């Protein structure tokens, strides 16, 4: 067991931290509201050049060969100033699908340019009826002579508005919610029949509603085996959830810190409000949840690469569920302890509050992950574990 950062990791964290402070303080997020895609390609390019996007990918696709712990450390720091670049949709969601399921050619064509920062990606998996069930897919991909024809509507495609390529889930067989029969395709937004409508999200990010009206693609655009996308999508969303936990850990740390500072500065009734015991204990509760959030996020970052999918799911669901409860608590109390200014757009705490909600809602909310945790074999197996029995 070892939770120390290596010297390389420490340097990485320092670099990202100083980047966030200098290049992308929270004020930049407010400015990005006016940007049509909500983020900047030049910054993305810079992240690619610094190796941040590819840190967790093997060297043969242009990565640095590190682990997702390294990626998590970066995302955590980006969370502290709410950097809006599409790390989660492009690297965690799409990157994990291409890495796990793409052919060598697909990796070269779609993954490597993204890791270099010259392109970005998205995954279109949500539909109006699908909630958190990845196989609840009505978009259809019909087999044509030399490829597929896609028709359907996807909603809330993170970075759908900015992506150069979009990985889309579509049914090549079966009925809605059949566990088999879903396939993945790489679509370019410029293809005939694709329409991308940008929408605004609560966290000042943007996303897209994407429609496919008989979009034709070749077989080379199929990612993974036909009809077998379920496990790739689950893996992808688990990467998304883990990244959300990492970013959430950064947010909690930032909110705890600004709240602590506010309590130390703000005076009411002739005293620093940080001398009021009820507020002190509230702040301690925030601290406890922050520490637990960091702990479970670390667990997910380590276990996301587990060979056993159930081991991965257990850690990710525990962390994501903790994010929903603990992250919600920390940001809510952060607002409350700031009093009036906490509910102005001008103050950063509201931005963290918003982003935390989005992170909690995405990739399975607290209810979903508690239910998943309770349905894993490990939940029942635990009953048979007794170190001293027999």
């Amino acid at each position, binding site marked *: 067991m070892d939770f120390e950062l290596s010297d390389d990791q420490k340097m990485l964290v320092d670099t990202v931290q100083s980047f966030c402070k200098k290049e992308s303080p929270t004020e930049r997020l407010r400015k990005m509201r006016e940007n049509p895609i909500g983020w900047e390609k030049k910054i993305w390019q810079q992240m690619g050049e610094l190796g941040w996007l590819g840190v967790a990918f093997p060297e043969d696709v242009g990565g640095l060969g590190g682990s997702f712990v390294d990626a998590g450390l970066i995302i955590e720091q980006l969370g502290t100033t709410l950097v809006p670049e599409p790390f989660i949709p492009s690297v965690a969601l799409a990157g994990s699908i291409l890495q796990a399921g793409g052919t060598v050619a697909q990796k070269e064509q779609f993954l490597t340019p993204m890791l270099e920062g010259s392109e970005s990606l998205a995954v279109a998996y*949500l539909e109006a*009826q699908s*909630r*958190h*069930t990845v196989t*609840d897919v009505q978009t259809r991909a019909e087999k044509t002579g030399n490829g597929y024809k896609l028709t359907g509507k996807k*909603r*809330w495609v993170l970075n759908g508005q900015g992506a150069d390529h979009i990985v889309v889930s579509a049914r090549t067989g079966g009925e*809605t*919610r059949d566990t088999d029969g879903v396939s993945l395709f790489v679509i370019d937004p410029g293809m005939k029949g694709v329409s991308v409508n940008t*929408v*605004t*999200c*609560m*966290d*000042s990010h943007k*996303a897209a*509603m994407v429609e496919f009206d008989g979009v034709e693609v070749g077989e080379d655009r199929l990612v993974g085996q036909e009809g077998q996308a379920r496990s790739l999508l689950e893996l992808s969303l688990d990467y998304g959830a883990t990244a959300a936990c990492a970013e959430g850990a950064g947010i909690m740390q930032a909110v705890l810190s600004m709240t602590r500072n506010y309590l130390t500065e703000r*005076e*009411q*009734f002739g005293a620093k409000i940080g001398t*009021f015991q*009820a*507020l002190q204990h509230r702040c301690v509760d925030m601290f406890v949840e922050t520490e637990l959030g960091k702990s479970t996020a670390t667990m997910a970052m380590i276990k996301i690469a587990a060979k056993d999918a159930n081991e991965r799911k257990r850690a990710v669901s525990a962390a994501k569920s903790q994010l929903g409860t603990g992250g*919600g608590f920390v940001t*809510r109390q952060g*607002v*409350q302890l700031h*009093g*009036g200014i*906490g*509910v*102005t*757009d*001008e*103050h950063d705490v*509201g931005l963290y*509050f*918003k982003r935390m*909600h*989005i992170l909690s*809602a*995405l990739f399975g*909310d607290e*209810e979903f992950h508690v*239910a998943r945790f309770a349905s894993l074999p490990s939940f029942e197996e635990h009953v048979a574990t007794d170190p001293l029995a027999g």
Partner: protein
Amino acid sequence: MDMSFTPEQIAFRDEVRKGLREIMPERIRKKAELDQSFENEEVMEWHKALHTKGWSVPNWPKEHGGPGWDATQRFIFSEQLELGGAPALSPFGVSMVGPLIIQFGNDEQKKRFLPDIAAGTKVWCQGYSEPNSGSDLASLKTTAEKDSDGNYIVNGQKTWTTYAQYADWIFCLVRTNSQVKKQAGISFLLIDMKTDGVTAKPFLTSGNTYAFCETWFENAKVPKENLIGEENMGWTYAKALLGHERTMVAGVGISGRMLLRIKRMAKNTLRDGRPLLEDPTLRAKIARLEIKLEGLRMANYRALAGAQLGHAPGPESSILKLRGTEIQQECHDLAMEVMGHNSLSWFNEPGTVPPRQEAIPSNFNYVRAATIYAGSNEIQKNIISKLILGLPNG
């Protein structure tokens, strides 16, 4: 003991429903049905519609244009409005400065101000909070100095002046004596927003609405006739106002409406092909919140029955704001959960999410203020600790 309304009260409720439906403009009714938010002009249109029925100032005595209702009738009226999703009137004229003028104003002030408030032809806002006086309101610094004619020259800054950008008048707490204990040097002034030196600048809330302004006073000259009651007695008047309508602060109608909305949304939201409302886990979550609200409603009824008999507010009334605002927040948390990915949506084109869901993300942010304003819940607990439980001072 009896927790049912009398036949007369039930008839009154039906009359209220019927009357409200009759006077509600079609455009407002449609928005109300879909739980949409209202613009300021719609609120004022609704105010004027209520006024045609004589229902715009339900808590005023008859002589000043009120309908002459008792505490229970006022509660029933208010609950029906809230349950129906009708626009909430601006409280600053109707529920705050109006009753204060009625109680402490002189005849001249009553004649001059009350009819316009009742009719909705003049809009009021409140100038209490300042940037450095949050929960510690009495530490306010805006000054009013007398000039040679006995009029007041006002200087300072107010904040959280709700909808000051639409207001014709503002009522302010100002410091007229800085040599005494902080509460003892405060006066209550009515100030025309068009006065030279008064500037209101809206700022964005975290809900992305311009609900509040910062309002500056720079040598603003206020006629001495605009002082309410006696100089330096403003704190007393403001405090007396706080005791008014304690039975209304729980917002049981608002939260009841919100639960209704959550159930409707959950009925129209699918999970694995079934309405989400059929999920036992979600049903239990909604039920727990509804049960909390039932408890609050009963506490509210107890407070109301006491008020109806003219009793001083009992211990149960002190929990209404505390618990009511917590429930409002929990309702919004749950609504966002039911919305699922639609809860990401932020002021998009109509049609992006179902109409009933459109306003929720903004409100989810803004409702955080409910446990902060009007005496934060921490302050409420301090008060209960001292005044009701009698715990010692530190």
